[in-house]
């Protein structure tokens, strides 16, 4: 179809903590890598989408200052942990709208050892109590009115699933981490590349029950980038670029619709289900067609919920699904063969393009030791709390 969208270049840095590179070094590495992969230069690019969550001032333009100031429109975006996917969609939408033929999307983050996300500041002991803000609070609420930090928030999301469904408990959540750490041992781009036994995971430091340390993603640095084009432009590209092109069969973004209690405990399920359903419909693909999935395992408890939200398992059956090892790389639908956020790492702005890098690399048959044989169709999912969700379905080129 004339309006199909294609990924022709994709790249990511290894996720880790970089001492000698800054944010723009990382973004440059990924952007130049993706352009080289597409056999293009910055001069060919018509639009740039730049995603970074913690540094929102002109990251795209700062990147251009290093790799090429060509005067094209730049869109700097931030959308929680879906920031990278949002940058990708900026490029995709510009191409779909006919404003651009070649789009570059870059997602980058430098977090270092940032620590727990979601914390407010301590109370000011010298100030008289005075209600402030929309809740009329006289001080910070984290730890006084439940937890606001990410490990506990996602722990509660998992426990909610465990409450409603049978066969889900601490061990099932821990098995998710066992799988993803094992998968990461095959990925040279992962921040950590070490397998752990289920016992090591369950007996590790408890962060927020049931999430132990190894069931929480690390903070880190990294970047990922993708080059997109339309079918018409693809036709005039070198045979090798056409052969390696990956079709974007669905690109969907949702926000969280109203649900009772959603203002108290973020609902990470409904918007994921809606995005997945729209993506399957738009791509004409069913969950059983998927050869691999990269989903948003910021915490082990989250991944288990998303088996169900993405319709990978039977409704309510996520516990049984992990017990049967269905999401392992040799299972029914391999999930997070990159190691996932839990072990590959989660530099927030990069994540939503890094998962596209991972699936594209498998569809091209270039994933080395971790290659899923004969992968034809894959799905990527990210969720940013607050909330934003993106689902992409990618397919191997027929050419």
């Amino acid at each position: 179809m004339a309006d199909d969208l294609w990924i022709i270049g994709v790249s990511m840095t290894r996720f880790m903590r970089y001492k000698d590179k800054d944010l723009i070094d990382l973004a440059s590495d990924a952007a130049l890598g993706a352009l080289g992969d597409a056999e293009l230069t910055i001069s060919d690019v018509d639009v740039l989408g730049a995603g970074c969550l913690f540094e929102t001032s002109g990251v795209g333009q700062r990147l251009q200052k290093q790799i090429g100031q060509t005067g094209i429109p730049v869109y700097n975006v931030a959308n929680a942990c879906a920031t990278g996917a949002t940058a990708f969609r900026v490029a995709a939408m510009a191409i779909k709208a006919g404003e651009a033929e070649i789009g570059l999307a870059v997602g980058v983050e430098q977090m270092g050892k940032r620590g727990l996300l979601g914390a407010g500041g301590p109370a000011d002991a010298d100030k008289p109590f005075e209600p402030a803000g929309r809740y009329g609070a006289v001080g910070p609420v984290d730890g006084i009115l439940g937890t606001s930090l990410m490990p506990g928030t996602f722990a509660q999301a998992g426990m909610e699933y465990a409450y409603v469904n049978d066969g889900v408990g601490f061990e099932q959540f821990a098995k998710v981490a066992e799988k993803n750490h094992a998968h990461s041992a095959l990925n040279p781009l992962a921040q950590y590349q070490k397998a752990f036994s289920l016992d090591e995971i369950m007996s590790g430091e408890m962060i927020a029950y049931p999430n132990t340390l190894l069931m929480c993603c690390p903070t880190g640095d990294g970047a990922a980038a993708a080059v997109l084009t339309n079918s018409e432009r693809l036709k005039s590209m070198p045979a090798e670029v056409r052969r390696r092109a990956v079709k974007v069969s669905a690109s969907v973004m949702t926000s969280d619709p109203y649900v009772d209690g959603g203002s108290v405990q973020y609902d990470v399920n409904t918007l994921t289900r809606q995005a997945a359903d729209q993506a399957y419909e738009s791509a004409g693909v069913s969950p059983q067609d998927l050869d691999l999935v990269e989903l948003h395992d910021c915490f082990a408890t989250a991944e288990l919920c998303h088996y169900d939200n993405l319709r990978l398992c039977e409704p309510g059956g996520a516990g049984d699904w992990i017990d049967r090892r269905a999401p392992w790389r040799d299972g029914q639908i391999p999930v997070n063969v990159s190691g996932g956020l839990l072990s590959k790492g989660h530099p927030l702005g990069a994540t939503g393009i890094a998962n596209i890098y991972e699936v594209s690399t498998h569809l091209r048959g270039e994933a080395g030791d971790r290659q899923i044989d004969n992968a034809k169709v894959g799905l990527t999912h990210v969720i940013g709390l607050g909330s934003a969700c993106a689902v992409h379905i990618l397919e191997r080129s027929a050419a």
Partner: protein
Amino acid sequence: MDDAHPARIPYVGYLVLDDDEPYLTASECVSCGALYFDRRNACASCGKQEFQSRRLASNGKVRAYTIVHRSTPDVAVPYVSAVVDLDGGGTVKANLVGVKPVPDDISLGMKVTLTTFAVGTDRNGTQAIAFGYRKP
């Protein structure tokens, strides 16, 4: 300041410290019944702008919980955070108090009831009172 009865202030605006029986209050959308604890501009469920205040039940059930072992330096750990579905409507997040911070002492679906506790006293001697939930 009367030392025997220090001035008290609710830690959040949706806690009402009425004599001996504190309770939670919500803004209820007159049109669709959605409940909110914050100051509203309009209803996130239906978009209408008319609200009325509604007193919520003090009893409910634990829909989800977590036991927080690592937090920021100013928060004492471990503690139990829970999402509680209140009888008759409304969902609230708070700490479970008076339970051991171990999974064996807490169960999903467990019945709980509202309680209050003092968080601190400011330089004027005003005591901030927060709420939590305990086993009945």
